[in-house]
């Protein structure tokens, strides 16, 4: 391929320029992956969404749990029906308390100013689309993941999410307002030891201390 006497070929004298360019691009892609994650965490809009955590089983150890969002159906806003596994855009908003409100789904992005989630179609029928979002992982210490077994039907499990340009990052999972990490047996032991040390203090104050000021969960919401 010749472009204005500049031969773009891996054999030409410009091959080292091409190689250096490749090195820069490869590092840039790696850097971008990390930066995007950080940017969503810092700059994303916070949402709270009802979820069900599931424990991943694998031959190798895993440092995350699978998060399923039960509110996965909404109205299809387009005329043409979506295909299976097609990428769609779920229009969302948040109420005063920060809980996610799903408006509908479409094959096109919403107008500027409105928020959305990237999702793939799982099922479609009667103008109702079932979707699945990509951000379904929450990183947790494997030793503290056994708190999932204690979650009951009546418990309220909320995921705190940050959203930006359709992509999302799960910041934390709260079971009845308490972080999932503190629901584990290890956390209970720690709490007991701390309670033993501070025997003269009331137990409620100990629990508040474990949660910490930065991890105050949202208030209990009645999610249907």
């Amino acid at each position, binding site marked *: 391929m010749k472009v204005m006497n500049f031969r773009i070929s891996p054999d030409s004298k410009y091959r080292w320029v091409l190689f250096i360019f490749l090195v820069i691009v490869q590092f840039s892609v790696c850097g971008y992956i990390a930066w995007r994650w950080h940017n969503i965490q810092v700059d994303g809009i916070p949402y709270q969404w009802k979820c069900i955590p599931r424990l991943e089983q694998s031959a190798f150890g895993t440092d995350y749990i699978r998060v399923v969002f039960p509110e996965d159906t909404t109205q299809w806003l387009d005329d043409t029906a979506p295909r299976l596994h*097609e990428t769609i855009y779920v229009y969302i908003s948040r109420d005063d308390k920060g809980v996610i409100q799903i408006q509908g789904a479409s094959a096109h992005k919403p107008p500027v100013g409105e928020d959305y989630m990237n999702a793939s179609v799982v099922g479609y029928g009667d103008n109702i689309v079932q979707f699945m979002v990509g951000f379904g992982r929450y990183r947790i210490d494997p030793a503290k993941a056994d708190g999932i077994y204690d979650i009951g039907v009546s418990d309220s499990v909320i995921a705190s999410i940050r959203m930006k340009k359709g992509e999302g990052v799960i910041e934390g999972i709260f079971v009845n307002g308490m972080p999932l990490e503190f629901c584990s047996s290890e956390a209970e032991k720690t709490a007991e030891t701390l309670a033993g040390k501070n025997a003269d203090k009331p137990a409620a104050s100990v629990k508040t201390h474990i949660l910490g000021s930065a991890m105050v969960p949202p208030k209990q919401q009645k999610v249907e």
Partner: protein
Amino acid sequence: MTADNKKHKFEIANTRSRTRFFSLYIILAVIGISVAGIAVIWGAAFTWYHIPIWAKMTIALAILFISQVGVGTAMFQERQGTWIGEGVAVVHCAVVFISVTLLETTFYIGSSVYFYMLVCALLILPVAYLLRSAASIIGYVCVVLYWAAMTGVSYSSGGSLTMWILLALAGPFYTLIREHHDEVRLTIFSWVGTIAVFIAFGIAVREAQYISFLLFSALAGVVLLTGYAMDTRKAWGFPFRWLGRLASVGALLISCMPAAWDSVISAAGFQWANIAVTFLLLFLGMGIYMKALKRKCWSPTLYALIPLVIGAETVLVRNGINFSLPVIVSSIYIFFLGIFEVFQGVRFGKTHHLRWGLAIFIFMGAAVLVGSHVSPLAMVVSLIVICAVVWQFQHFFYKKKVLFFQQTHQNRRTKKDHTVTSVRQGINKKRKNHHADPTYKNDAAGITEKKQKALPDWMAGAVSREPEAALPHTETVSPKEPAASTFVAPVFHGPDQIPLPDKKIFAEIKKEAKGNKMEQTKKRSEAATIKPVTSSPWKTPAPIKRKKQFTQSPWAKEGESKK
């Protein structure tokens, strides 16, 4: 000599045992490293959560940097297009995938895995070009196809075009390896490329509403031309050529059926994007073919024209201009193709082509029979067959007639003996007849006997000679004998075929060289002792003094006596 042989055998045995020993060590080392790697990965997986994020990122970037250094070193050592280059490129590809996977799982935002795979494929493509690695290109093509199959991008025109553009990015690799005359990689790439194109169409078929025999024929043309272009020194493309021929004729045969065109008419969403891409591929194949191989022209041209013919027919049908013409044109074309193949087989003795031509006719017959309703193919074929038979009969009778007239005309001319040539021809013919016809011989013998009786004795000897000897030699122009060629074909030996001289000869040569050197040094030292050089060699040489020789004129003493 026997001792040398023994030594040589011992050396061979020694090297063999050493090789076995090393190969065993290499196998053990590979197994050990693999087990250690698995153990490290296992251990890291269980403690992965406790490794800080910055450390994970550093690990990913560090292994990527090491592989990049490897690529740079391979480029610096000019390892492009070698097995080492291939290995380095494959390792780099694996490392790119590992690094991106590490970062993707660490900084998880829920993007599609297939998207990351595509990103990795695009990142490894330049390395495939820089190191001329066929394995990396194969990896790239596989990833693109997997991405297209899993995401279903070929459903939309834009997605389909993206898939084709991504596949086309691997295209210039063909030119690159062709420039370097790397026949093996060229063949591998051509095979992989063609199979990839077929898989891509398979993916498109799964998603698209309609893929016609037009695409099939175009692909067949591409395969055929690729097969021809592949044959640089060896017939690597032989299966490709025949596969292309088979598919082309298959597509043309389908286009002879009216039912096939019904589906073209009824198709709602016509995949023009895929068709456009296929035709681009076809023209690309034509370009490659024209550049690579121009000698064989007719056969590839005829087959490459099939998609263009079907394309024009499709345009006619889709626009509602004509519905019967496509079927008739296709029928005529397939018939012509069959005749061409049979002609190839009969005229040039190509058995495969003869069989193929006959097979085309059998296919046509089967298509006519299998077709459930009245097809114009039957009408057209029968018409062409009748025309061909009539034409053959006409041609046969005309030829016979012409031959008859020519013979009669020639007979008349030989009787008149008009020209020297005809006379000679007649004499030659007579001579031949003399040899061939024994009755004539007997008659001639009888005549000579009669003559001998009638003639006097002194003439009997002359008449009794052989008729050939009696007749004067009529050939006035004798062809010049070709000069015997003194050319001897050169014999080329590879470096391995040239036998090395014995060690004894080496020792003798060394001795001689040593003796010569000693003599030379002796001579030099002697010369140095006799005449030391005192003057500069760049000094202007002293003029040579010559003795004056006076010459006397021959007339110098003239007149002395006249005093």
